[in-house]
């Protein structure tokens, strides 16, 4: 997905050509003159600060000289009439340089169009998972054991696989600790993770403690679930599945 969109390539090429063409044409050209000042009608002179008037006059002098520069861009002619489109007088009050009042913090980011770059990927991913599920479901049937019977307890009785870690803890702790306290605290800490971890870094090498803690936590549950699923037989006693067979339904 790292290809550069063709319209960007095209635009870059055009810009390069323009630059090369311009470099030949405008060699030794004078920089474009400042904003052409309007000629102030004499009646208004007392309202305009003296330094602006000075600046306007000197700029007007420059503008009259500029057309003589060889190959330089022609300065727009100073307006002949002092009035604008609606008959209003246009005045240059001040020039605000860029950056003097605006402080742009956001840097432009490298972005791509969601269509097609992201949507195609998502579409292909959903196709893959659908195909996988369909093929898996054709060959492997969901379990349907005999009708539920309250009087006949299967041995072993197991919870769904994602709760088998908790059931495994039941063999070690009092049910209140294993079934409620430990998972409750784990869930609570998980929710609070962003408020506990105040480290601002994202790179794994700068947050080794958080990464190792989470890995230990995830491995803890994964190992418990594995043991509960595959290594527990009748009476929830420890077995080896390659000796005693599987006691696990999905």
């Amino acid at each position, binding site marked *: 997905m790292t290809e550069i969109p063709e319209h960007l390539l095209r635009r870059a090429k055009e810009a390069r050509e323009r630059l090369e063409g311009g470099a030949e044409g405008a060699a030794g050209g004078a920089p474009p003159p400042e904003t052409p000042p309007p000629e102030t009608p004499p009646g208004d002179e007392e309202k305009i600060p003296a330094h602006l008037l000075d600046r306007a006059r000197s700029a007007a002098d420059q503008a009259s000289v500029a057309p003589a520069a060889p190959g330089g861009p022609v300065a727009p002619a100073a307006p002949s009439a002092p009035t604008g489109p609606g008959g209003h007088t246009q005045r240059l009050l001040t020039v605000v340089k860029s950056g003097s009042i605006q402080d742009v913090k956001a840097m432009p980011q490298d972005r791509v169009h969601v269509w097609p770059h992201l949507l195609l990927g998502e579409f292909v*991913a*959903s196709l893959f998972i659908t195909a996988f599920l369909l093929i*898996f479901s054709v060959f492997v049937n969901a379990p349907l054991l005999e009708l539920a019977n309250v009087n006949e307890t299967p041995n072993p009785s*197991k919870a769904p696989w994602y*709760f088998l870690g908790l059931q495994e803890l039941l063999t070690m702790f009092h*049910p209140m600790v294993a079934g409620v306290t430990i998972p409750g605290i784990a869930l609570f800490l998980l929710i609070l*993770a962003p408020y506990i971890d105040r480290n601002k870094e994202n790179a794994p090498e700068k947050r080794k403690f958080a990464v190792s803690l*989470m890995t230990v936590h995830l491995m803890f549950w994964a190992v418990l679930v594995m043991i509960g699923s595959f290594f527990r037989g009748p009476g929830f006693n420890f077995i080896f599945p390659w000796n005693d067979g599987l006691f696990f339904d999905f």
Partner: protein
Amino acid sequence: MGGQLGGKASDLMGQMQGSQAWVSIFRPGSIFRKGYTDSPRNRSYVIMNSVLYHLHPVKVKRHGVRVSYTLCLGGLSFFLFILLTVTGIFLMFFYRPTAAQAWDDIYILQTEVAFGLLVRNIHRWGAHLMVLTVFLHMARVFYHGAYKPPREFNWVIGVILLTLTLLLSFTGYLLPWDQLALWAVTVGTNMMGFTPVFGDQVRFVLLSGVEIGTDTLLRWYVLHVLMLPFVLIIFLAVHFWRVRKDGGISGPL
């Protein structure tokens, strides 16, 4: 002959595209009105003029479309949720949540309904897969440090979504009403019965009685097909909305 047919077809197409229904579905600027040629403007219109604009912005950070960054896990979880909703609706047509009928309904669904077994299999394996993808999505987000400001609240919603996913899967576990379902749920609810102070009440509310029976089945059925999906969709909406409000996907590392 062919030219006539083609002319009629294009007439019909023109009439359809001029109709009130077409014009109200495909808004001005839609590619279904003006045709699509590949340009930045049209690429933007594809998203802006469709319901997708609620999910995706027009542009995303370049690193965000790399499969190796997200592994598509969040999107796949959402897709599996849609797949489970569709297959679940199909299953609802053939299922009655009472102790006397539930098992027989599933059995008949598997043996006599066209594609019944296949759809049930997809629903079951898809549910297990969704638990897995949601879990892996959480791990991915943690390892990228994506739960850090400004995304800390979205992490909280994500953990709630994980819990809801587990509950949805667990409530669905009882519905076939076979030995596996009954005893898995017995083990699970017994565990929850050890909640301090009001353990017995928690168990009573969950089972709709003192022991598992036909009332439990009805309760878990309503939870599974209506209440939990409803709550999940609300949290999903907030989850997706926050992804965009927090400046899109995290990173790059």
